[in-house]
């Protein structure tokens, strides 16, 4: 019901189809090219939840920035719902590892940001902001400034700031990476619930194998830089998943083996 206010009225499936075709990318470090992505191809069905796993610094976050349209890919093509990505768009939203809330705005003001930027009429804003805050469990914190929030609450606010725009593709760049273990568990359950309620397509970058397996329908394992796809593993388990489910434990071993970690 809360989600209904945020959803697009005329969309059967809330999520976008994402197609990444042979995308390569390099950084220019003082004139020398440092390759970070090596011909990545990936299709995500509408409403799918895919996790990108890989060693830190392998280029996972870069891939998300390219999908968000913050930078153009060096080579290859990224398309969302059949249309080439040529710049940022509020239907594709990125949630960063740092909440990056604006310290001069209240929680409510931060969540309202996308609505203001897109020129949504003022009377419509309040209801949407309120619904988004309720969705992430932050109702009652609307007037609070970000520095008064805990890390978990700040990340919830960042989620609300994205969700208020009814994104069809949510890009999560290690959103729980800096939280303590208990908060992380709580927010994992939260993200799962939000995804199940609204069915946006989700691309989650993480280096936590368990997090990927508990949340995603599919886990893509990336190699060291330049990142290439090493494995594409379906996780065919019902939600909510148990961390000590034998199948999950088996997948975890497989993935750690691929990543070259001692099991």
């Amino acid at each position, binding site marked *: 019901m809360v989600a209904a206010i945020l959803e697009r009225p005329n969309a059967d499936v809330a999520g976008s189809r994402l197609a990444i075709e042979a995308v390569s990318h390099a950084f220019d470090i003082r004139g020398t090219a440092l390759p970070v992505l090596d011909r990545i191809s990936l299709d995500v069905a509408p409403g799918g939840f895919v996790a990108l796993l890989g060693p830190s610094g392998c280029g996972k976050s870069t891939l998300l920035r390219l999908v968000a349209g913050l930078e153009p890919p060096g080579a290859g093509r990224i398309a969302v719902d059949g249309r080439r990505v040529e710049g940022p768009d*509020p239907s594709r939203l990125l949630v960063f590892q740092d909440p*990056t809330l604006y*310290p001069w705005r209240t929680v409510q003001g931060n969540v309202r940001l996308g609505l203001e930027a897109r020129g949504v009429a003022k009377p419509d804003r309040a209801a949407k902001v309120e619904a988004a805050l309720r969705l992430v469990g932050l109702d009652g914190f609307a007037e609070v400034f970000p520095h008064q929030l805990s890390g978990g609450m700040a990340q919830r606010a960042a989620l609300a*700031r994205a969700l208020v725009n009814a994104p069809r593709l949510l890009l999560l760049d290690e959103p729980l990476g800096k939280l303590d273990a208990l908060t992380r568990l709580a927010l994992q359950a939260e993200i799962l619930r939000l995804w199940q309620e609204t069915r946006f397509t989700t691309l989650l970058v993480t280096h936590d194998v368990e997090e990927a397996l508990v949340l995603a329908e599919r886990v893509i394992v990336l190699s060291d830089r330049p990142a290439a796809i090493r494995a594409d593993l379906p996780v065919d388990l019902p939600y909510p998943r148990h961390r000590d489910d034998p199948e999950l434990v088996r997948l975890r071993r497989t993935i750690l083996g691929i990543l070259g970690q001692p099991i």
Partner: protein
Amino acid sequence: MAHLTGFAGTLPSAARLPGPPLRALVLGAAWLALAGATYALPEEGDFAYTATFAAVALALGLALAPLAALSARLGRAGASLAHWTPWLTLVALGFLAWELITAKFALLPMPFFPPPQAILEVFLDDWPRLGGSILASLKLLAGGYLIGAGLGFVLGVAIGWSKAVGYWAHPILRFVGPLPATAWLPLAFFVFHSSWSASTFLIALATGFPVTVLTWSGVAGVNKAYFDVARTLGASPAFLVLRVAVPAALPHVFVGLFMGLGGAFAVLVVAEMLGVRAGLGWYLQWAQGWAAYANLYAALIVMALMCSGLISLLFRFRDRVLSWQKGLVQW
């Protein structure tokens, strides 16, 4: 350890001084002593307002002592009075010393060091001219400061935001900016038609440089992730400048505004002394020309009040605009 904490604990509450009732008594005694000495001792010279000054001191002593004694029951005003009681006592003793070494014993050369009642005389007799000078100064200052702050802010945002503007503006700022605004004075007075517009220009220049530089560094230093967030949310370039870069840079802008105000005061006084025939700077110059040293001190006191008042006003404004910083930054 106990000694240390005891020391730290007593410092803020004006301790090492007697308790409230005794403090009130000392406060009253100090002002009454000032009144008595001023009125009763013979003076070296002829001052018209000696009795008035003594009466003011007497009235203050009679009013402050009981109020200070009862300060605990007077709410916030009482707490404030209790806080300032040691200072008020010191002020009375300072006046007393001043009175004694000038009017009473003439220990300092007379025309240069007038007694307090001579300065009181200036305030009571010459207030129309003094008041007019304050207004003239404020008008000139406000015009120049607002123009300089406004242009500096816009220029600073433009330089911080646009590489092209930065390319052209940066060398000019590097070359011209560090030049003290007063160095332009002779040039400004013949380029501009009136000394008033010349002074406005100089004050604007003195204000504009720090505001420009700090706004620029504020805008250039904004967390790049803030822009990424806004861009993915569909923000236009105007939104990125006005709703992201500017609010994020405001703490820096205020540092520039404070520095600019200090510079503006300096230029104001010099410009009024050298060209503009009005204002507190002119009043100082005029008083010195007529060897009216009491007027000189009176004008200095007024100027100090004006400058510190304006700085406090800017502080208030900053606290209001940057209220979100409360708890984030200590000041």
